[in-house]
């Protein structure tokens, strides 16, 4: 294997790949563990990648497959002690960030692994759908439809929870979460 070439190709996409894994699993420790496992897998299979220009979608496919395999493992092998604080953004109110993540975790839990990966890439990481096509090997229309269904499913999941972290401000849900009311992604140009 050409070790140097692998690391050279990884360097520009390393930050978003690492971030993707952390957000996919909802915490830094599990995310880093998944990322390291996937990179080791990718290194061992690097010789099978014919077109080195397709490194990014190839690597993300490996990340997603590793994520799927991880979810297939028995639940007791997936228990880890999480460190949420290290992922916190110091510019955001910790209470608000905690509530927000709690809701997101609940909503994401309703989705199958691949749909979860789609939501993270599109809604959180802001990838254009055209780039997601090469990762998931599906046409744009299919990806859009799946994103629509995934989002509806997440919303329905949240509807089923009686408690609401923002209950003290029920009348202002349109301003509390994300400032102005916005159901659309702010940079959803290809939607």
């Amino acid at each position: 294997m050409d070790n140097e070439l692998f690391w050279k190709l990884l360097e520009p996409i390393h930050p978003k790949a690492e971030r993707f894994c952390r957000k996919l699993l909802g915490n830094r420790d599990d995310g880093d563990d998944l990322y390291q496992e996937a990179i080791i897998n990718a290194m061992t299979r690097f010789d099978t990648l014919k077109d080195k220009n397709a490194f990014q979608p190839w690597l993300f496919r490996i990340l997603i497959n590793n994520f799927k395999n991880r979810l297939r493992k028995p639940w007791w092998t997936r228990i880890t002690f999480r460190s949420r604080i290290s992922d916190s953004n110091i510019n955001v109110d910790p209470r608000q960030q905690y509530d927000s993540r709690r809701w997101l975790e609940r909503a994401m839990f309703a989705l199958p692994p691949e749909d979860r990966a789609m939501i993270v890439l599109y809604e959180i990481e802001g990838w254009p759908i055209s780039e997601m096509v090469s990762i998931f090997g599906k046409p744009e229309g299919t990806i859009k439809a799946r994103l629509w269904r995934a989002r509806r499913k997440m919303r329905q999941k949240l509807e089923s929870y009686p408690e609401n972290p923002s209950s003290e401000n029920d009348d202002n849900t349109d301003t509390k979460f994300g400032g102005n009311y916005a159901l659309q992604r702010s940079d959803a140009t290809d939607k």
Partner: protein
Amino acid sequence: MHCKEVMQRINDSVAPDGEMLKHIKTCPDCARAFKAASILTGALKGEKENNIKTTPISEFRNRITERMKEKNKESIMSIMKNRINQRSGLVTGLSLAAIVFLFIVLVPFSYTTTVGYELQYTGLNNVDITQAQITQALTTFGYENVDVQLAGGNCLISGLPNKQDAIEMAIAFKALTGSMVEPEIKPILANISGSLYAQVKDRIKIDVETEDKTDEEIADEITTKLKKIYTNPVVVVTTIDEGRKIVIKTNESDSEITEAEIIELLLDSDGDISFETPAKAARLGLDIDTEGKTADEIKAEIEAKLAEQGEDGATVDVMTDPDGKHEIRIKLEKEKTVEE
């Protein structure tokens, strides 16, 4: 505006107008859906804005290098553990194998086996010898652990480990007492508790090739092999529709044959024969009438009977002393001396 239209707008992430907000205020279901959609949007946006500091590539590369080194150092046990974790079927298979192994080795079953032989004489009225004298004489011959009980013309000699010893003992007893009474040789059966493995170990295996052989040839081959274990085995091989039927009676002359000593086998037409038989059986038995015969005649008769039992290489010496008593020496694989 109706609920259906509002829900459609919520699902399509369309921004609400005044009419939609008016409906939401009056409809609890739509209000709940709208609220959940708002929460979701906020949560996704919050997560998007959360800029996580990522690990520098050089540091990450070092971590991967270290992790790969550790992976290469993985012990055989951890590799096995990983393989087992990946294959739940393997775990089940290994567990079953372990259970079967423990079952075979540890779980006891009761089974009957021959643990020795005894000689029973009846009608020894003309014998002028005491129990102590018989015991002493047999001890002189080397039968130290033999128990003799003589009472009222009956004699029971027990403690003989195998049938060969029982037959030799009968010859020795005849020589010692001069009695012509034939003893009854009885196997001593014991109900033993042992594992399946112990039962199998207590048997010996016989292999016979059947390819291009007639029933008679197969019977002869099995008989020859069995003769090394049993005194007079009888083997009958017949061809039947399903293949071959083989009936083996391990000792024709033995009146006390147990069920365990009759073996019935049903085989496919071309299958080679492989079966097991109890190992604790007499290896050799001789019944010779010496009355009125010369030493050479006795020798010839013994050699013929030994040859019948597959003992071709035996050396037989018969000597007659001035009193007319015969001394017979038979040399087999292990040397035994029998005096008459």
